[in-house]
Every structure is written in structure tokens, then in C-alpha cells.
């Protein structure tokens, strides 16, 4: 099950906890992976850890020109691109009354527009080869909303709508397009919370703990696999039951 031998994958935001876990999990199942992010040295460390079948492709997703070059670079390095994981995301939190246009635009650019551009670039080869997997890492707040994250929630909700439209366009070519919506996942971001804040969050999660990057990576591996061929346009919530949608 879930064998990815001979498959090629591009994971954006592979410098983060969730992105690195996804790259590790696809790689472990036999895929060749291209890892992208803004911090080249972190990518090199991940490459050193994983060994063979890894390509480092640094890219700033806020820069349209760099975004346009990423998929062609991945295809050139690996010969094709079967699996695209749009994982990279940024936050610029603040209450809407105080939110600057720039904070709005940057978050939409990186989280949503770059995902669209990368998907558009990747779907061409996928359609030709009649096989592909596009996976977007959205968020529970894209469905539930969250005070202080109007920009982030909008970008993540946008990703879900885009995913459904692309899924309809590409289904006849055996290209599936899905989202994963993590809830509260233990990452460097949540490490910054104090114990009291963590307790308050965990109280809202029926599973009684924060999620791990591996919980999300397992969902990504499933959606990336040949076994998930009949699943498209969906959002898989990985949140310990904190929101049941």
C-alpha cells in the first residue's frame, strides 16, 4: 500500500515542520522529492538526512518570477512531476481593523496565488501523462475562521474553493486535487505558547493532544498514493476532532 517508487514530488515549505514531515514520508515510500523553501541551508540539512533521490530548489513564493520557474526546475531535475504539495504558508496576524493592505496581500500572494501558479504549471505535464496528485495544505481556520487571521483564513478558504474547481477540470485525466486541513499541530509556532495557552487549546480538542507533523504527513501520503485515485475535490481534516465539518 501507498508505494511511491518511481514517482516524483515537489513539496513547498519543506523547511517547516509539516513540510519536512511530508517530504520525509513521500521519500520513505520511494518517491524522488524536490524540496523547496526560502532557507537553502535548512533544505540542505534535510537533503543530507534523506540521502538519495532529493533535489533542493530554493524559491521565494512571494516572487512571481521565481514561482513560475519552480515547476519547470522540478521537472528538469526529476524528469517529471507527479505529486505537487502546496504546503508553504505564512501568517501576518492582526485584528482586521488594524490590518495593513500589505499584510493582506502578502498572505494571499504566498498562500493562495503561488499555489494557483504552481498548480497551473504542474497540471500541464500531469494532464499529458494522465496522472497527477495536487495536494494543498489548508487549515481548519479556512473553514471555521479565527479572530486575528482574516487574511490567513481567507487564503486557506480560497485554497479549498480553488481545489474543488481544479478537481472538476482535471478529474477526467486521472489528476486528483485535494486539501488537508490541519488543526493545532505541534510546531515551532506552537512551542512559543505557554503551558496555560496550550492547556486552553487542548481543552477544545477531543483527542486531548496537539497533532504532530507526522499526523499530517500520513494524510498527505494517502492522498498522494495511487490508492486515493477516486478521492478528489475533498478536504481531509486532521484535527483530533476539534472541528467536525
Amino acid at each position: 500500500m501507498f508505494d511511491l517508487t518511481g514517482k516524483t514530488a515537489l513539496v513547498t515549505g519543506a523547511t517547516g515542520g509539516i513540510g519536512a514531515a511530508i517530504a520525509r514520508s513521500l521519500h520513505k515510500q520511494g518517491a524522488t522529492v524536490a524540496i523547496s523553501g526560502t532557507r537553502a541551508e535548512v533544505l540542505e540539512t534535510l537533503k543530507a538526512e534523506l540521502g538519495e533521490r532529493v533535489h533542493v530548489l530554493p524559491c521565494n513564493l512571494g516572487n512571481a518570477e521565481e514561482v513560475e520557474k519552480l515547476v519547470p526546475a522540478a521537472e528538469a531535475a526529476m524528469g517529471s512531476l507527479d505529486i505537487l504539495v502546496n504546503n508553504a504558508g505564512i501568517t501576518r496576524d492582526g485584528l482586521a481593523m488594524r490590518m495593513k493592505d500589505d499584510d493582506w496581500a502578502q498572505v494571499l500572494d504566498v498562500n493562495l496565488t503561488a499555489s494557483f501558479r504552481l498548480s497551473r504549471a504542474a497540471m500541464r505535464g500531469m494532464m499529458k501523462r494522465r496522472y497527477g496528485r495536487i495536494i494543498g495544505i489548508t487549515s481548519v481556520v479556512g473553514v471555521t475562521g479565527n479572530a486575528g487571521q482574516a487574511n490567513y483564513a481567507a487564503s486557506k478558504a480560497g485554497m479549498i474553493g480553488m481545489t474543488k474547481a481544479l478537481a472538476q477540470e482535471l478529474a477526467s485525466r486521472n489528476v486528483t486535487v485535494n486539501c488537508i486541513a490541519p488543526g493545532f499541530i505541534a510546531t515551532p509556532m506552537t512551542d512559543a505558547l505557554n503551558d496555560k495557552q496550550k492547556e486552553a487549546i487542548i481543552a477544545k480538542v477531543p483527542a486531548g493532544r496537539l497533532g504532530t507533523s507526522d499526523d499530517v504527513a500520513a494524510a498527505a501520503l494517502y492522498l498522494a498514493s495511487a490508492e486515493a485515485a477516486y478521492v478528489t475535490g475533498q478536504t481531509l481534516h486532521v484535527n483530533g476532532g476539534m472541528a467536525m465539518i
Partner: protein
Amino acid sequence: MSDVAERVKKIVVEHLGVDAEKVNPEASFIDDLGADSLDTVELVMAFEEEFGIEIPDDAAETIQTVGDAVKFIEKSAA
């Protein structure tokens, strides 16, 4: 047959997996060659790549048959 027509034919045969004999100038991509809307987009993109031209959306809509494609490309490349 012109060079453009030969190259168009090759792309259509490869892309739609149809017999070369069926690809005559009057053949409609959708009605005769079994293309769907995605196929037509893919064909337009393949023509753009092959001939180094740009086919705007409104022009793409007028390209219904193999002959339409050849005519448009010959005009653009001239």
C-alpha cells in the same frame, strides 16, 4: 500538404490518439475526432509550443477544425 499541415496533423494524431486518415482539413476536433474541452485547450497549447506563436482565447474559439488550425497558424507565422 504544407509543412504546417503535416506538423498539425502529427500533433493531433499524437494527442487525440486517432487514425491519421481521419485527420483531414474538414475534421472537427470535437464532433469528428472525439476531443473534449480540455483536449482542445491542450491542442491549442501544443500548437503554440510547436510553432512559437500565441493563440488568444477568442481566436482559439474559432478553431473548430483541423483546417481552421492550419489556416490560423499559417497566418500567424507569416
